[in-house]
């Protein structure tokens, strides 16, 4: 790969760290003494619901926002005092595609390349290369205005890679992508760490973090609640496969929960409003047969029955005792931290 030759840092160099970073927007404490460290050449995933402060920390690390207190370093540079140096080693893909609609795909990438001071010729060559990689070669000479949402996303990501920066920040990169594009993007992210580049990504999807990250930090209300490898997280916090059932008669939800607990199932969680019940699938798929028998015995009819990959909600529930939706409701009352950017 050409980018590994152009890399400005050895794999040991480009790390990210934050020490006690806080940021307040009016009444909302968007970040509350956040500390973490990302090792060079690894993928770090910040996992959390809307309004948890993910975008705020990305904006601080990419020099768009100053922290109220605390310090942060990106590739050994202080994000406040050495902001310009930080900018030369990072690529940022924000939550919404940041591309110029009036320019063509090729012009967009060429412009970014020139602004990284690659020189016109090199910027052009690199643009063509990236258009090819991101399956946009045919659309390269069309104005971005005519692009679909997925194409804009891909172009946006290509723009972050123009200068082959050793550190990438991707803020919810797969939100709004179709499954195929999502897989393609995952591939690109994995390649980055193979090339020794450091990737800092935020996501709302546990599956995505699990798949890509060497380390995951779970964030809520401006704080990191738990940090660890995907496996550590699964072990500690209900990240295992779950059995999910739905009872036909919602009024009997709690009765069913009780029956399952008596049956020896732990961490059974039911939502009476929807009739949904879930618990960790210990013992593999044979547990499904047990559930059916048990429900039969107490005469509760099931509308749905299945195994389900855990979601952010499940992990959240295990750590905080509430789901991300209740977090969102709390946050919305106080004002949404992620949308209070300016």
């Amino acid at each position, binding site marked *: 790969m050409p980018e590994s030759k152009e890399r400005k840092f050895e794999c040991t160099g480009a790390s990210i760290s934050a020490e006690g970073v806080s940021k307040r927007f009016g009444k909302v404490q968007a970040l509350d003494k956040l500390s973490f460290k990302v090792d060079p050449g690894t993928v770090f995933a910040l996992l959390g619901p809307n309004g948890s402060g993910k975008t705020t920390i990305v904006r601080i690390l990419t020099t*768009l926002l100053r922290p109220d207190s605390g310090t942060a370093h990106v590739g050994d540079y202080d994000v406040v005092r*050495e902001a*310009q140096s930080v900018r030369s080693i990072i690529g*940022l893909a924000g939550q*919404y595609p940041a591309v110029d609609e009036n320019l063509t795909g090729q012009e967009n990438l060429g412009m970014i390349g020139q*602004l*990284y*001071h690659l020189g016109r010729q090199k910027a052009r060559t690199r643009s063509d290369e990236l258009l090819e990689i991101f399956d946009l070669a045919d659309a390269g000479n069309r104005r971005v205005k005519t692009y679909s949402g997925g194409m804009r996303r891909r172009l946006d990501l290509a723009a972050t890679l123009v200068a082959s920066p050793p550190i990438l920040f991707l803020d919810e990169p797969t939100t709004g992508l179709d499954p195929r594009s999502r897989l393609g993007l995952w591939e690109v992210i994995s390649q980055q760490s193979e090339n020794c580049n450091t990737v800092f990504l935020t996501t709302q999807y546990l599956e995505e973090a699990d798949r890509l990250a060497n380390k995951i930090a779970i964030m809520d209300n401006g704080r990191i609640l738990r940090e660890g490898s995907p496996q550590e997280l699964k072990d500690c916090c209900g990240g295992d496969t779950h059995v999910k059932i739905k009872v036909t008669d919602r009024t009997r939800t709690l009765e069913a929960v009780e029956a399952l607990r008596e049956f020896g199932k732990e961490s059974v969680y039911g939502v009476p409003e929807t009739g949904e019940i879930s618990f960790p699938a210990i013992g593999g798929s044979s547990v499904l047969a047990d559930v059916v028998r048990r429900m039969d015995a107490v005469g509760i009819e099931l509308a749905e029955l299945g195994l389900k990959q855990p979601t952010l909600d499940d992990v959240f529930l295990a750590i905080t005792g509430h789901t991300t939706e209740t977090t969102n409701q709390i946050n919305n009352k106080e004002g949404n931290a992620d949308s209070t950017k300016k």
Partner: protein
Amino acid sequence: MSLKISDTISDIIVMTRRDILKYIRLPQLLVFNAMLNVVLLLLFNYVFGGAINTGGIKYVQYFLPGFLAQTVVFGSTQTSVGIAEDLSKGLIDRFRSLPMARSAFLTGRVLADAVRYAILIVLMIIVGSAIGFRFENGVGPVIAGIALIILFGIALTWVGVFIGISVKDTETAQVAGFVWVFPLVFASSLYVPIATMPSWLQVFANINPVTPMVDTIRALSLGMSVSSSLWKILAWEAAIILVFLPLALRRYRLLTQ
């Protein structure tokens, strides 16, 4: 890490090019802008032309120099709107995360607007000539006049940039622009002789930078001596840039808060 001068210049060129391409890709913007100016030019000439006593000078000869100045004054309010619009989009975050010169985003915008003003001014002079306007003294004064107006436009555009970046909302930017632009245009020697105004307004009209701007172009077009108005307008242009360019750049840096 500080940026090389050549990189800064390259960044400004790249950003200017981006804004000019917008006018090329969306020609309707510039076309309607030009049409509006032509319509106003003709209206003012034929509606007011008979009513205002300009001391024996043909009205088109009297007001067209000011009309050129008006074009750049109103043009600067569009800058406010454009900047506010750019700030509301995600693209600004990308620019701010790049190792480009901090000044390039705003400077590029101002220079692209200077190109827009040049096009409009040349068009106005052509239309004006069709209805009787003349530069009596040949090519030199024409070029000097155009240059002075464009420089005036650049100065005011920095004011527009400052307003756009301060209000951050396109509709507010539009209204905020009109607040300062209308008094500048009308309480000046642009459409009527200052002597016809009430004395308190004459005080403002004499201080108003539009007045020396208009007087200078008028003198250039009539082949008269530009006298002190030339120095006045040059001083104004320098002063406005010296105040508002740093203010606008400071606001841009403060976006991190």
